[in-house]
Structure formats: C-alpha cells, structure tokens
C-alpha cells in the first residue's frame, strides 16, 4: 500500500475511487506492473479471477514488451479474448465484482476491462434427481455460460433468441430468457417478461425462488413451472414453443408454460419404444391417483363401507384390524408421517447412512409395528404402495405437492367415507381446472379437450403421429412435421 502513497503520476481519480469503494474488501487486490517502458496497474478480486490467466495473458505481454504501450495498444496486445475499454467507474466496479480484471495506465483516464474470470466449478455430471436410462447424461452446472452452451448444442436454430437481464437488486444475478422466436408465442414471452420484471427482491440465489414470484397462483400444491437440470429436457421444451429461463449460479432451468400432463412426462418416454412408453405413462397416471387417494379409500372402506370388499378380504382385514387400538385415520396418519420422516431423513444423509436408515425404518415399520399391534399389516401395504406410487412421478415438485394433498383427503375420508373421498376428488379437479400456467390452462389437453394432443398424453403414440406442437404453448408454428397437420 505504500506504493500508492508515493506515486502521483497515476490517474488519481480512478485509483482513489477504487480505493474508496473497495475499502475493507480484503480480497480486492491491486498489482503494479512496472518495466523500463511501462507502468500499469492491475486490479482484480482474488478468487474470482484465474491467476494463471492474469499472469500469462496480461502481465507477461507487458513485461516482455520493449516499447511504451498505451491502453489501446494493450487492447490489441493482450491475449485475453473478452476485452473492452471504458471510462465509466460504475462499469469498472461492477466488472471487478463479476470476476474481471481492470488494467489502467499511469496517465490515461481510460481503463481496460479484461474478462479473466476463473473459479472452481463442478464437473458436468448426470443430474441425480432426473437420471435417465437412455437419454443424455449431461446436467447443467452452476455457470450460466456453460449451461447455455450445453443447451445451444441441441438448438442450433437461427431463430433462437436470448434476452439477458439481471435479477435481484443487490445480487444482480444474471438471467437469460431463451426461446425460439418463430415458434414461441409473443404474448407468452411478453407475459413472462412482465412477470419477471415485477420481481423486486434483494437477491435471487436459486431458480426455485423465482417460481413463487411468477406463478399464476401461489396457493396451490401443484408446480406451474418446470425446474430441470437437463439440457435435453430444456431443448425439447423450447422446440415445443416453451420459454426457458437460465439463471447464473443455478443448475436449475425454469421452463414454462408447463402443464399437468407435461409434468408426468419424462425424456425417457421418447427414447424407448412407444408401447412400453405408453404403458409407463399410464402407470404414472394410475400412480398419481393412488398416491393421492389410496389411503383415504382404505380409511373410508374400513370405517364406513365394509360392504364394498369381498368377504374373504373383509374377514382378513377385520382380523388384522382387531388388534389395533386406534381408529383407522390415526393409524394411517401415523404411518404416513413415519414414512415422510424416513424419506426426509434418508434424503439428506450420505448414502451409506441413508441406506441404514431405510433398512431400520423399513423393519421397524414393516415388522415391529405390526407385531406390537400399533398398525395393521394391511395398512402397511397401503402406506408402502402409496409411498412407492408417489416416487414413480418424474417430477419431484409434483410428487411433493401430491403427498401433501393426501392428508386433507384422508381426514375427509375419516369423516365422510367414500363421499369425502369423492368430495376431495372434486376439490382437486376444481383446483386443477382453475389453475393456469403462464395464462394457459393447466389441464390442457384434458380440459380444454384437445384430442390432437392426446397422442402424447396418457399414452405416447409413435413419434410419427405427432405432427403438431402441443396447443398448450400456443406455438406460432404449429407444424412439427412437414407433411400434414398444423396450419
């Protein structure tokens, strides 16, 4: 620091300003580069720049230069690719905080901003929550540039547009809205921009936070936007006319509008043959209903409508219920809560421990609780089936929402039996039909019924039959395959 006090030839103004603005910022660093011909000052924030880049690409050329260099000379001389010249202090300060280095000349008032960002990054891995069997095994990482790059490889479309902006008053997180201009509906893009602009918050850390701001309805258990870590999912969605939002430092990309039906689809569906794919799809819809309604149907049946069951089943349920002292609702609630606790416990633990938790939990629930007469063994089957059903859904957000829906319906079932379950179903339907995602109906193609889109709904028909883009996205260009259909 001594050095700065002595030297008067350097641009006082800039230097002073920097020093003021980076006072008490210990990771800010200024290095003097002095040769016989030149005297430069280089400022950067350690940890955000690649020190190797800085020394190789900036310092080395200066040191090796045999003549006097101006900033303009440096602009052409430096090996750094992303370079620009500015005089605006705000820009300089922001650039510094974004991992760039600034180089200023002793006498000039110009300043060279050099893009030398470099920090430790995760390797590209398969996203754990969305692994596939056949699909690509790449997942987004925490860098928006890399992410868009990965996505770009799927979409070399000339009409691909990206609108960049920053989110968060303080965090100024970089975000990028990506869509294909001649497919995506302009109104949807406008609507999305309008909603994003409405966000007023100091910082955005993760993509998930944006969701709450731009949802059509927040008081709901159903996700209205997809958050995915998969470039291929994103690309497929964008090709269908959806809009993707990339956010810096977040591997999750937000995609919308995303309907209920799309949440039950997975990329794998398209990479296996259509018959098994349809079967799996169908299973998912069955599981959707089981995971919401199975425990409540069980409660309703054994507390009101024993007549529904065939005699042998009635008797065996009666025998196993006989030892349980609590009413079926409490029994079910207890088991459901235990399963939820186990699930959550297993989720955050390192995998060897979580396996142990699973085994211990499984044995406690499966064997001991039944033997102790706390729950009946039929209830264990019901609860296990319900839990497994909720795991079959490809979207975490969806299965989280559904799991919560189960509890109120169980209570309804305990009060009203099957009538309560049906009332619960009515509430679910009423809620779903009033939901919208980015202003488009959430239940499309079921309601409004678009039979054309049923080719990719509960069943997945051969790719050849899907000639048009889904109506959900109101795509400008409805045609997917050149021959027939569409416009």
């Amino acid at each position, binding site marked *: 620091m001594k050095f700065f006090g002595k030297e008067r030839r350097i641009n006082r103004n800039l230097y002073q300003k920097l020093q003021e603005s980076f006072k008490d910022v210990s990771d800010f660093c200024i290095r003097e580069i002095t040769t016989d011909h030149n005297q430069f000052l280089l400022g950067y924030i350690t940890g955000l720049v690649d020190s190797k880049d800085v020394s190789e690409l900036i310092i080395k050329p200066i040191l090796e230069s045999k003549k006097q260099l101006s900033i303009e000379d440096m602009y052409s001389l430096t090996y750094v690719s992303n370079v620009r010249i500015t005089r605006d202090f705000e820009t300089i300060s922001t650039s510094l905080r974004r991992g760039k280095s600034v180089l200023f000349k002793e006498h000039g008032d110009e300043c060279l901003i050099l893009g030398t960002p470099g920090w430790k990054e995760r390797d590209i891995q398969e996203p754990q929550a969305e692994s596939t069997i056949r699909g690509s095994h790449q997942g987004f990482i925490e860098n928006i540039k890399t992410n868009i790059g990965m996505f770009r490889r799927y979409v070399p479309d000339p009409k691909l547009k990206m609108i960049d902006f920053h989110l968060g008053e303080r965090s100024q997180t970089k975000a990028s809205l990506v869509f294909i201009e001649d497919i995506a509906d302009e109104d949807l893009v406008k609507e999305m921009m309008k909603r994003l602009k409405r966000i007023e918050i100091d910082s955005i850390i993760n993509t998930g936070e944006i969701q709450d701001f731009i949802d059509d309805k927040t008081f709901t258990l159903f996700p209205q936007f997809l958050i995915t870590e998969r470039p291929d999912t994103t690309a497929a969605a964008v090709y269908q006319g959806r809009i993707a939002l990339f956010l810096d430092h977040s591997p999750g990309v937000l995609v919308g509008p995303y309907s209920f039906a799309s949440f039950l689809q997975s990329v794998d569906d398209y990479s296996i043959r259509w018959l098994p794919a349809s079967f799996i799809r169908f299973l998912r819809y069955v599981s959707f209903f089981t995971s919401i309604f199975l425990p409540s149907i069980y409660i309703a049946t054994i507390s009101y409508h024993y007549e529904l069951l065939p005699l042998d089943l009635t008797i065996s349920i009666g025998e196993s219920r006989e030892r349980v002292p609590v009413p079926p609702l409490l029994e079910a609630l207890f088991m459901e809560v235990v399963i939820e606790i186990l699930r959550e416990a297993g989720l955050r633990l390192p995998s060897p421990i979580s396996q142990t938790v699973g085994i211990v939990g499984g044995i406690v629930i499966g064997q001991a609780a039944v033997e102790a007469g706390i729950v009946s063994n039929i209830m264990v089957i019901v609860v296990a089936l319900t839990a497994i059903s909720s795991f079959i859904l490809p979207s975490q957000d969806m299965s989280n929402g559904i799991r919560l829906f189960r509890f109120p319906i169980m209570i309804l079932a305990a009060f*009203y039996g099957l009538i309560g379950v049906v009332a619960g179903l009515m509430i679910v339907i009423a*809620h779903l039909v009033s939901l919208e995602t980015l202003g488009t109906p959430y239940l499309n193609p079921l*309601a409004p019924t678009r039979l054309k889109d049923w080719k990719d709904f509960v069943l997945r028909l051969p790719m050849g039959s899907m000639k048009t883009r889904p109506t959900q996205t109101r795509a400008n260009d409805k045609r997917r395959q050149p021959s027939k259909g569409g416009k």
Partner: protein
Amino acid sequence: MQRPYAFSEITNFQFVVLITGAQIGIGILTLPADVAEVADTSGWISVIIGWALTAVASIVIVKVMSYYPDSTIIDVFPKLFGKYIGGLFIIGWLLYALFAAGLVFYTSIFLIQIWILPHMPLYGLSILFSFPGYLVARHSVRVLGRYAEVVFFLTLWMFVFSFFLFENIYPSYLLPIIKDGWIPILQATHTVVLSFIGFEITFMLYPYLQDKTFAIKGVLIANSLTLGFYLFILFLCFIFFSPYEITSYKWPTLNLLKVIELPFIERLEILFLSFYLLTLSTTGIPYFYIAAVSLAKLFGKQEHKIPTIVLFSFMVIISFFYSPAEKQLEQLITFWGNSAIGISYIFPVVLLVVVYIIHKVRKRK
C-alpha cells in the same frame, strides 16, 4: 366493439359437455321407474319423443340468442323490457336457477343419506359439498367448461361395469314394443321431459361459445348424448327387472348396480353413487353459477365471487335449520318441474316471437 365475454370463450366440446352435464342428473336414477309406471317398458319411446321436443326447444333458444350474440339472457332482459321490468325478469331467472341449484344440492345429499351415510347430518354434507361447489362456481364459464370436461372423462369408466350385468337379462321383457297403445307413451313424456331439463343454460352459454355456427349442432349433439345415455340405462333396467318389479323400486338404477359382484369389489351402487356425485355436481354448479351471476347483475357488479359465497352460505345455513322430508322434497321437485317446463320449453318460444317482432319493428324504423 370489444366483445364482453371474449375473455372466457368456451370450445365446442365444452359447450356440449356443459349442457349434457347439466341434463344428466338425478333424473336418471328414478327415470326407469317413473317411466315404467306410466308407459310400462314402452317408455323408451317416450324418451325419444322427449328428446325431439327438447331438440326443438334448444334450437329455439339458440335462435333467440343469435339475435344477441354478445349477451347472456340476463343482459337481454333489460335490453328487451327496460331496466325495471327486465330486472323483474332477472329476479325470476335468478329464483328459478337458485331453486334448481338448491334442489340438486339437497336431493344429492338426501340420496347420500339414504344409500350411503344414513347417520350423517344434513349440514355436515352441505358444508362438504359447498366448498368444491364454490371453488368452481366462482370462476367464469370457461372454468366451468373445463370442470365439466374433466368430469365427463372421469365418469366414462362407469359404463364398463354395466357389462357385468348381462348375465340375468331377459330382452323379451321389452316385447311387444308398444304395449298399451300410444296414450301412456305420450303421457310419460311429461316425466321424461323433466330429465332433459338443463339445456336452458344455453341462454347463459351462448355468448361464450367461440364458434357461434356450432351452436345448433352443439345443442343437438348434447341432447343426443343425453338421449343415448338415458336409453342405455333404460334398456338395461327394462331387460334386467321384470315389468312388475321395476315399479316397486324408487331408484331402480341403483338397485341394478347392487347386484354386480366382482372378485375384487362388491356393492357397486355405493361406489357408483359416490362417483355419480361428480356428474351431479355438473348439474348443480351451472345453476349456482347462473344464480350468482344474476345476483351480481342485480347489484350491478361484474364479479360474482361474493354472490357465490353468499349463495353457498345460504345453502349451508338452511341445512342447519331445515331438513326436508322425502315427500316434501318430492313436492318441491314437482313444483319446480312445472316451472322448469314453462321456462325451458314454452318461454323460449314466446321470447322468440317477441324478439322477432321487436327486430322487425326496429328494422322498419
């Protein structure tokens, strides 16, 4: 001019299922017995006659509304009759819809109390159904349409089970086709026509329909769907129960289901009636919606959320103090039925004449 109802346009299919949903309701549970009472097993002919009458009435409604493509009936009343007399008409329309909504609501609860939950208090069930009812009815027609669509697809599976009935059936019960002449058949039409009521919501739906040219086709398709369903149930009941037996049941359709036993489930009438509530809800909710919108119109409001809350609370509060006995409910239904026939079959014709004359006069001016 900006079309006032463009924000909530409905598709053709939504138009059809909304009408069919409003038509298919409690009627079908009692229809086979009611018809057999008068016309024996020839009753199905009455259903076809009823369908023809309904088709004519629906077309008349569409014709009336096509003079005012951007108004619902409650917008038309003031235009036709002025603010005050028009207001009276709106009140009449409101009372009719409210009465219909209330009857569907209470009859459904009554059915549940008889067949499924005999010890459940009335108010308990009315609280239970008010909530989902409100969730749908407070929205615009478009959401109602989507709801009707989902219910339509979710209740289709119920047909599958009827195939298990084809074991103890005697098609010869249906013969001879015309048993006691045409007079009883015509008499039974009166009962039948009541089961077709519901198409008069076209008065409210018309301005929302995206493709107005589809309107006539739409009402015809809706009525025919209803007809198909009624005939299916009717034939099933007539060939399953003997003509002597069927009139001894109040709800033969449910008794029919009681017989089915599958390896994994028995007593299907409990399951079916529970699920049938979905269909019943598509009958009741449009009426609640109409009543709420009319109420909002009377107070000059655009939003009908508060009126919906008021109406459902009204239903719940009544249920705490008054629980209708079976006979009373029946009398109310008969009373309502007569007014419904007036409003759905006679009123449109009168209105068409009035509108036609008014337009002729205005054109001359």
